[in-house]
């Protein structure tokens, strides 16, 4: 059951992409967005923000998206929170591996800014 307003935690180290994603998601409507530039901030702020879903970049500094997923699963209350990856590394085997490791789905970069919000909603609705 997808809530009316989706609380989305977005982790991305590229500031330009953060801004574009923010505008895209705002344009789509129906989201409350928190954005972080690195995994440490995400792990610190997630318990307070209590996201309904998370959108992770794959190649983050210090801690990769996959490591962040493993770390956040250890945080109480986050064992089943849907995690979507947004990555340029989306060969079929890479997509499969991410899903096997617990990701809900993968959005390929470059993403379509017009439909990004709807794409996230569709993935969450299908879960």
């Amino acid at each position: 059951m997808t809530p009316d307003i989706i609380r989305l935690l977005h982790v991305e180290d590229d500031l330009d992409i953060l801004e574009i994603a923010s505008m895209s998601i705002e344009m789509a409507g129906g989201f409350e967005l928190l954005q972080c530039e690195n995994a440490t901030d995400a792990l610190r702020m997630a318990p307070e923000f209590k996201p309904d879903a998370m959108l992770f970049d794959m190649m983050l500094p210090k801690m990769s998206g996959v490591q962040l997923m493993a770390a956040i699963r250890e945080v109480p209350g986050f064992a089943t929170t849907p995690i979507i990856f947004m990555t340029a590394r989306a060969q079929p085997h890479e997509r499969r591996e991410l899903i096997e490791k617990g990701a809900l789905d993968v959005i390929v970069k470059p993403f379509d800014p017009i439909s990004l919000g709807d794409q996230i909603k569709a993935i969450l609705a299908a879960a």
Partner: protein
Amino acid sequence: MRDLTKYIRFGLQSFIAVCGAVIVWRAWPLDRFSFAIVVAGLVAAFIWRRIDKATDAPSVDASALEAHAIMLRADQDGKISFANERLLQLTGYERGTLLGQPMRVLHHVADAETYAAVDAAMARGEKWTGETRIIGKDGRVLWTRMTSVPQMDKSGAYCGSLRVHSDISAQKVSTAARDAMASLNLLSEPLFMVCLDTYNLVFANDAAAKLFNWNRLQMAEIRIFAVDMLYDRLAVQRQVAALKAKQITEFSFPATYHDVPYLAEVQLIEAAGMEPRLYVVLRDQTESMAIARTKDELVATVSHELRTPLTSIKGALGLIRSGAAGDVTKKTSDLLDIAYRNADRLVLIVNDILDLEKMAAGQMDYDIARRDLVQTVKEAVTANEGFASRFDVSINLNTDDEPAWADFDADRIHQVLSNLISNACKFSSTGAQIDVNVERRPKSFAVCVVDRGVGIPSGAVERIFDRFTQVGKSARARSGGTGLGLSIVKSIIESHNGTVELTSVEGQGTTVTVVFPRATNTATPANLIRSAGGKT
């Protein structure tokens, strides 16, 4: 004849000796005259015996020489005047054919310089000794050690030569075999040979013996399948069975020994007079695997580093075009369209280059499953309708709804069909129609993309699947093209065991046909995956 003479002579000598003994016995005691006769007789017998020995000796030597050596004599013009039995036996010539022939009929062509040196030595009246080759009547080669002696007449003038050869072919072969074995021992890569019937070790070079700690004395007792290398034993045994059945002549398989990765290359060797052997070379893959890993990482990094800024550029342009950042004028909107289209084109180029890199490195990942080809064709047509309308071209899909089951990667085949349809759009005239036909053939399905556009000059058709080949100079034709598309199409289709054909008539249009094998099991599989946007 010589032996008969010898026996008669021996009999005569014995008879005289007996007569002498009788005379001495009867006339005993001898007077001075008789004693002188007996002494003279003994001296004569001794001298005769010595003469016999002297004459016998050469005849024995000549017979031994005849049996062992090749002898031939040439006259002063270099024509053969004498050839012994051994020569005829080893070369296969008949005496009548050979006599009168120039000596060079027996010379190996590679020994021309050697024989020139022999001739020069003969002309100087000097003996020559060295290695030469003799060619037999059927082309067989005999390695020989030859001594050539000049023959002089009474006046001391050169009148020919006598050549005596010893056959050293066997020695040469064993030397060559020994040299070959020594060379194999010098190889840094482990190499061994295995008897195909018993799978016991026949030979191992030094590198293999060192790697597996094989004792040369016990080597013949080692069974190769007992060696504790890590590999797919069942698969290897299947391949060996195929070798035995002569279905294949060689194969290779990955193996690991003490954590070192190897590629084992196996070849069947069958030489005349030798039991069939498996020849195995182990190639250390540590370095090549490291290079492959580095390349893989590089491809991943380039992929990320190029797509990240492209994500921002495309995203920003897309948002401005959509009005998210406020209203834009018509002129600004047109310019934004150009920028957005070219950002798209850049994404395609990056994707194409990365795809080609992966294909070249054999790293292209295919998600092949049993799917309905008709469904994927429909999706590709729908996805390209927007692109076609940009060129004012319509797409006509000709297929029935009966599923066409084939094994393929939906995303990649979608990519192939999109490439062909978009090419057809670009090369069609305004208002033209493109046909996409699905044909059902006995063992395959064919998808034909037919345009009625400018076509391809006949000279360019052959290189149309090469990288960076673009035909047509018009801006319309070149828009969005990287020149890589058709080489990617070909590579993808061939990876699906399919074929791609292109026929074109300049000025009339082009047809590209991709053919997929039908799924071998026609029954609908339980785990059937119906193509849906490439998701599985």
